[in-house]
């Protein structure tokens, strides 16, 4: 019922620059092979929203449901990430702190590692800034543990701080996602893990991308000017569709297709 709003906005012909700047983030997330530079205006709004998830999206290949452990001290964010994951056919366990996460995994020093087969975790998504144990500290503890170091860990943060991103990636984080987390982020992660290529790409060192987006995350106070600027820079022809300079925090494997 709400999906009509995008069409409403588009067909009411609001001038492009009146859209809030971050809308173009979606455009940049589109993998290059699919980006049609020729029909920019029309595609702009159409690609603004990720496609609605239909029932057919549930893995019919099916018994393989990924189990994701989500860690975030914000109740709002936990609710959202839980929904994002469920709608992407993942089982979710959402906890509010690093301590609870370690307890769940059985890494809190308690004699508790028996019978974790049924609760196997395929992916850990954790917020960076949390009281007590930060996401970074949680990441370190997980990577230090023999049993769990192979589980991919994704860090989420509302701050786009390069040193923070570097530190996390160096410590072994699979990826660093700038909040707010979107459906496209979750689906991409899920596909990445399902494909199970994580192991090989890790060895090749291909997947560790830094966030090099050339736009500022905190929305500028004069939306119109900066949006026009960003849009015009996006309209310039790119050198190649699989350019290694591609400013993206996505794993390179995304572009390999």
């Amino acid at each position: 019922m709400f999906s009509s709003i995008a069409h409403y906005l588009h067909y009411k012909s609001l001038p492009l620059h009146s859209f809030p700047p971050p809308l173009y983030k979606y455009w940049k997330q589109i993998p290059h092979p699919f980006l049609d530079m020729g029909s920019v205006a029309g595609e702009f709004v159409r690609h603004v929203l990720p496609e609605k998830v239909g029932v057919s999206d549930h893995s019919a290949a099916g018994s393989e449901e990924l189990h994701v452990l989500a860690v975030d001290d914000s109740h709002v964010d936990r609710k959202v990430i839980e929904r994002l994951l469920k709608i992407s056919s993942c089982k979710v366990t959402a906890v509010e702190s690093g301590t609870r996460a370690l307890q769940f995994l059985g890494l809190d020093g308690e004699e508790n590692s028996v019978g974790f087969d049924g609760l196997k975790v395929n992916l850990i998504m954790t917020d960076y800034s949390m009281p007590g144990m930060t996401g970074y500290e949680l990441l370190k503890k997980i990577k230090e543990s023999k049993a769990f170091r192979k589980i991919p860990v994704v860090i989420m943060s509302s701050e786009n701080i390069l040193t923070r991103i570097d530190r996390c990636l160096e410590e072994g984080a699979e990826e660093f996602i700038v909040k707010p987390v979107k459906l496209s982020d979750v689906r991409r992660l899920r596909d990445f893990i399902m494909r199970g290529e994580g192991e090989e790409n890790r060895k090749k060192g291909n997947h560790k991308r830094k966030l090099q987006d050339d736009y500022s995350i905190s929305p500028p106070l004069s939306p119109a000017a900066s949006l026009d600027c960003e849009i015009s820079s996006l309209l310039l022809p790119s050198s190649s569709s699989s350019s290694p300079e591609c400013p993206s925090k996505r794993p390179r494997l995304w572009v390999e297709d």
Partner: protein
Amino acid sequence: MLGLGADRLRADMNRLLALLFHQGVLDEQFLQLQQLQDETSPNFVSEVVNIYFHESEKLLRNLRGLLMDREFSDYKKMGIHLNQFMGSSSSIGAKRVRNVCVAFRAASEQNNRAGCLRALELVEHEYCYLKNKLHELFQLEQQRVLAAGVRYPIQN
């Protein structure tokens, strides 16, 4: 004649949403939340937003409490509350609220108490506006659902 009221209410809702987008009160993250709502989770958006209101009011109370204290000096603690508030605001697409928080954070980083107080007032103002508008939106939605359920007698 079925659902005429529902259609008009839907139009009202879309108009309100378009206005809020145009004003920069909401951004595309709010659309993302709407996309997550379906038959299996029909009240997702209002549930998340209500959690946001609940969390935010606590955080705003804390911020005001800290700043009203004559001997206030714990800018770090204030920064933590502020970051939490900014984070959840951006998670629901509350763009203008989040933007005024940026100014608040700047004042806080300069240990500028007066600046923080001014910024807090701005934040509270934007938050109130957002809350009122979202309540309006959810009311329209409730009415629309009711109207869509109304059956008119069919005349042969």
